[in-house]
């Protein structure tokens, strides 16, 4: 491909899933208007939702899902060895995601609740960066296809990979939404990384922080806000735990 005098090769890409719903990978097939152009940038080497061909020579590995079984650790380490760039893809891979809610309960209790007496090989949920080195993290539940395209284009053209550093409030105010705190709710928008175009709050659903903390958030002031508004700290904690994104801050405050 030729681009302003620069030529570049198609990006050899593999996409893999661990403990997840595969919804983020499915996003790759969305955004039909640019889908052919997007696929044109890629040489898909390994992606079970798209092709039955399997090759191990990929430059970029997109890894979706968290780690919740011993055998997943070995598989992830092999992918890391094969890939030049490993991308944590979606909130499960980046933070543990919804799956990590089970870490709030004794492991055997969670297994019994779901599988009864059937024995299941499982362990507490971990984000993938606990196991392997992660080069790029694309958060979101699910990821935003537009953002994924932007990042893949950045990689293809060798330009800087950028994520918004500011919180969701910026995008929420740009959409002229009513602040959900004014409606008496707890919203994680002020501490969550933007880039989602405030899709949940525009639908009057509070932000649960799927994109993780924005940069340099003022967690203390946020806690104060929830207290000042006499909202439930229990509710807040539940929301902070939802995607397991705010672990570091939650522990800090104690």
């Amino acid at each position: 491909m030729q681009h302003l005098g620069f030529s570049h090769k198609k990006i050899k890409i593999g996409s893999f899933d661990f403990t997840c719903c595969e919804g983020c990978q499915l996003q790759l097939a969305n955004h039909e208007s640019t889908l052919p152009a997007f696929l044109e940038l890629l040489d898909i080497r390994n992606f079970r939702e798209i092709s039955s061909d399997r090759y191990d020579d990929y430059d970029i590995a997109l890894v979706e899902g968290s780690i919740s079984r011993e055998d997943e650790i070995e598989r992830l380490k092999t992918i890391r060895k094969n890939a030049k760039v490993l991308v944590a893809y979606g909130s499960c891979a980046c933070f543990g995601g919804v799956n990590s809610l089970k870490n709030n309960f004794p492991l055997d209790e969670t297994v019994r609740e779901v599988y009864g007496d059937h024995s299941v090989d499982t362990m507490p949920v971990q984000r993938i960066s606990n196991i392997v080195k992660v080069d790029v993290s694309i958060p979101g539940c699910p990821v935003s296809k537009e953002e994924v395209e932007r990042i893949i284009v950045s990689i293809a053209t060798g330009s800087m990979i950028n994520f918004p550093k500011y919180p969701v409030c910026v995008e929420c105010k740009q959409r002229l939404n009513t602040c959900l705190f004014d409606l008496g709710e707890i919203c994680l928008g002020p501490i969550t990384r933007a880039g989602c175009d405030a899709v949940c709050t525009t639908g009057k659903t509070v932000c649960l922080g799927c994109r993780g903390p924005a940069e340099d958030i003022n967690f203390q002031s946020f806690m104060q806000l929830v207290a000042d508004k006499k909202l439930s700290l229990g509710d807040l904690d539940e929301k902070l735990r939802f995607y397991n994104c705010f672990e570091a801050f939650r522990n800090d405050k104690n």
Partner: protein
Amino acid sequence: MIYKVIAKPEFEKFIDTLVSGETLSYGPRHVDTDKQGEPIYQFREVNTVSDIAFDYTATYSSAKHFLLPFRENLSRFTFTDDDWEQDIGYEVKPIILIGLRPYDISAINILDSVLLNGHFPSPYYLARRKNTFIIGMDHLPLPDCFSKSLNHHTVSHGFNLFCSDIGDKYYLSINSSKAYNYLKEFRVEDPSYDDDCKLIERRKLIKQSFKTDVEVTGLPSFLDIEFDSPIWTKWGDKCLNCGTCAMVCPTCYCYNIEDRPDTDLQGSSRQKQLYSCNLVDFAEVAGGHNFRPKNGDRLKYRYYHHYLGFAENANQPICVGCNRCGRACLANINPKDVINDLRMEKESCMICVSQSPDKT
């Protein structure tokens, strides 16, 4: 300026004809009710006169984005083999803005001074400004509004038509031939002596209804002197860095520009987004260096820009005193408290014991 009066039912007919036409119209609408039962208003599209909440208090966000969109494509690039072409368009559709308060019109006048009369006039802004028909309306201030302190509780230009409520009529200040021609189709009269008196009474009432006063005399020198004041850290420690204040502000115009290559790499868009000096990477440069890494520094510069002004607008404050930022701030930061804190810091200085020199 031409002055007329119009009976309220006739005025509603006039507005209805205006907004039900083909031109996109925006006015204050009741969009939500907050937890305390208070209505929340925003400027939204209106199609009939009944959509408009004429008696609204203040909109949550300003009308700024109609002239200065939150996000805007500035130009398109098309790449050919070893060359590129740039395509810039300034075409915009005309719009009608209804029900702006004097401080919101003042805010637009301030934006004009920066974006039209400064060293680098913005053709994007000009295109929108010239295609915006503005109808202003007066109203009694909210208790926390301090626009009078900044002399923006009345406005004498920057609108096509301004309507003062004098009971069963509106007193119209007609400031453009377009507005005059629109009104020709409707029953308007020359103001009587009584109407003039009522207008004066109305203005007096509005002026006397302000409950919040922020002392801004000498503020520029206070700000200069208090560059290293601990109050910036105190308020900065509260700041959530969320940018809400700048988004709802009628005059914050700072922005960020990004080039976004198309997915097929055949073209690219140059995109502008309104930004805020409170956002963590506002002053970040190549290499990840940040000139203002601390909350307090960023907050301070927002106040500097608002109350000291920039050279572009002859060092005039750009704040109009609407207190939208104060109302929207989740961390309870508002200009009144910050400025009072700053003045207290100086005026009640306990360290300085030397007396003023004697009169000579």
